[in-house]
């Protein structure tokens, strides 16, 4: 089947869908709903038509729009000085949004595509950060310093060029960690999986705290080297240039989105959609459900790990405290909030969610700690008014509105017999 033809039938199907599910939602909130609907009509209209337009565009046009967005995103550090006097600070915020967006896009594969509730996602971010911190030699250096070894300073890591190699190594380590942690647990369903993954996050953090001889425990690791490019006559050290990290993140995100779109449009994407809706039925269609879930889990882990490497190499310091469940930067719960707020199952949703959740608290820094209150209020408000998130994928929104996603696990049956 040519993918163009498939796309067209899909979007036509979605047009016919729109008439039906909307009406049931209106009935749920008759009075407040209609006032709200009238007020926000323009915004919703823009969001929806923008999404529709994009979906219906011919391939070259879509490519053009995407390229335009990438160029725009790449131009942000260049444009910031024209917008704000404090452009250095806002560039660092933009970099933070980059890491958050990468993590949200990774978690979205697990939660949004495969439908697995993962509350320990930060574990893989930590795996990446620590893999880089330890393999770059910074860990050895930190331990030598805290033990006051003579000549400890000689261990100061300087070999930046290996960043790219270590980036790759960290990716492999996280893939393996994802498969190892996922294999026994992905047989569990919904709530149980959430609890077990919650445990992962804590296990990794506690291991990092107690593995004194390797990670220097709760002291953390500092002096993590920055990336550098050293090809031929090009010598460039990322150092403390936030723009450089921003562009690196942007490149990783673009590659990831490209891969994700390819995967999601393939039979793997269809398999994920089927598993989300009805796992038992998916299994009887011959979909290898465990492998498909494992694939999503490992893909998410790998991306989080890349984020961790870039984060560690930029900040230069990590400690177990950087990877708390509720950490206000990249805690598992915050990343999940980005995905849910932005809208699951698509590409734009998690990016928007990440941008808002990092940007808003920074923007309202002047009100002090009250900003977290405001922030929490905004989150609750959005979730009440738009439970499917700001920019959900069409398919995911349909599933939520249909309210028919069943949770049956074939593995209760399969395992019982084995």
């Amino acid at each position, binding site marked *: *089947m040519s993918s163009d033809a498939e796309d067209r*039938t*899909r979007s*036509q*199907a979605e047009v*016919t*869908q729109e008439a*039906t599910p909307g009406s049931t939602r209106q009935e749920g909130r008759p009075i407040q709903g209609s006032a709200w609907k009238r007020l926000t009509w323009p915004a919703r209209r823009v969001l929806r038509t923008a999404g529709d337009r994009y979906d219906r565009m011919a391939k070259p046009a879509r490519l053009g729009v995407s390229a335009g967005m990438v160029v725009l995103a790449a131009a942000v550090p260049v444009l910031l000085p024209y917008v704000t006097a404090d452009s250095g600070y806002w560039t660092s915020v933009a970099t933070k949004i980059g890491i958050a967006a990468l993590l949200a896009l990774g978690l979205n594969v697990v939660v949004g595509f495969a439908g697995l509730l993962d509350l320990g996602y930060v574990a893989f971010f930590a795996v990446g950060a620590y893999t880089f911190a330890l393999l770059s030699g910074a860990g050895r250096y930190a331990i030598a310093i805290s033990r006051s070894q003579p000549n400890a300073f000689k261990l100061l890591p300087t070999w930046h060029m290996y960043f790219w190699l270590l980036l790759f190594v960290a990716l492999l380590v996280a893939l393996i960690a994802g498969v190892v942690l996922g294999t026994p647990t992905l047989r569990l369903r919904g709530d149980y999986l959430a609890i077990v993954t919650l445990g992962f996050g804590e296990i990794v953090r506690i291991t990092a705290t107690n593995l004194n001889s390797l990670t220097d425990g709760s002291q953390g690791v500092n002096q993590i080297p920055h990336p550098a490019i050293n090809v031929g006559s090009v010598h460039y050290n990322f150092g403390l240039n936030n723009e450089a990290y921003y562009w690196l993140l942007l490149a990783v995100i673009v590659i990831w989105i490209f891969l994700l779109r390819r995967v999601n449009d393939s*039979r793997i994407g*269809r*398999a994920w*959609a*089927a598993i989300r*809706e*009805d796992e*038992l*039925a*998916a*299994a*009887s*269609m*011959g*979909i*290898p459900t465990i492998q498909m879930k494992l694939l999503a889990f490992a893909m998410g882990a790998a991306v989080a790990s890349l984020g961790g490497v870039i984060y560690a190499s930029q900040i230069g310091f990590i400690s177990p405290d950087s990877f708390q469940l509720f950490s206000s930067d990249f805690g598992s719960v915050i990343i999940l909030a980005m995905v849910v707020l932005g809208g699951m199952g698509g590409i734009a949703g998690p990016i928007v969610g990440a941008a808002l959740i990092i940007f808003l608290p920074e923007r309202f820094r002047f009100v002090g700690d009250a900003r977290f209150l405001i922030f929490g209020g905004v989150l609750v408000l959005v979730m009440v008014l738009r439970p499917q998130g700001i920019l959900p994928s069409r*398919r995911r929104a*349909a*599933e939520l509105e*249909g309210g*028919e*996603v069943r949770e049956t696990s*074939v593995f*209760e*049956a*399969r395992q*019982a*017999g*084995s």
Partner: protein
Amino acid sequence: MGTALLRLQGVVAGYGRGDVLHGVDLTVEEGAVTCLIGPNGAGKSTVLKTVSGLLRPKRGRITLLGRDIGGLSPQAVLSHGVVHVPQERSLFPSMSVWDNVLMGGFVLRDRAVVRRRIEHIADRFPIVANRRHERAGSLSGGEQKIVEIARALMLDPVLVLMDEPSTGLDPRARQLVFHTITEINEGGRTVLLVEQNARSGLAIAHHGAVMESGRVRLEGTGSSLLADPEVARLFLGAAPANRG
């Protein structure tokens, strides 16, 4: 006819600790419709799940044309040409009818084959063509069942396992389902049918088997079971009353 397509010998299976099937022996002849009847909880659905790989047998042999298929994964069983239309609703409710039927061909790698098959199916089942863009969840129960059967044909199966396809349908929809089963069978496919509407089921079946408490109690031709006073006393009288 006459050769055994599917054969179960002493199959023991269950969920968790207790066994549900205590040694099931059953033969499904090639090209025939075999109807399995029995009271609620007898283990009829469990037999079908064990054959289709959703449940692993603990003991016993399941063979398809002599090849052992017991304990294979659902994918592997599908690739042997055995498809299962389960008792529960199994369409993906928020996918379109068309996408649902496409899903039936998930294990097929060749897109040209998939397209040829789905076009053929759309010709044969008008509902697939006419309502292709509708959400499967918005179809009525009877309509969904027809789409499920259509979807099962995507793999061009040799054996179709059908679990109570007529339950919950009005008389006309039920008739359509039975008619469709007969058609499928006349197209050369073997059907193993589980039915609560035992009279209608046995009427279209060449062979019948009666299950009770995890064992096959009686086997015979459809008409001989219909005429058997013991069967009539045990099931035929009660079944229609149970399940309108």
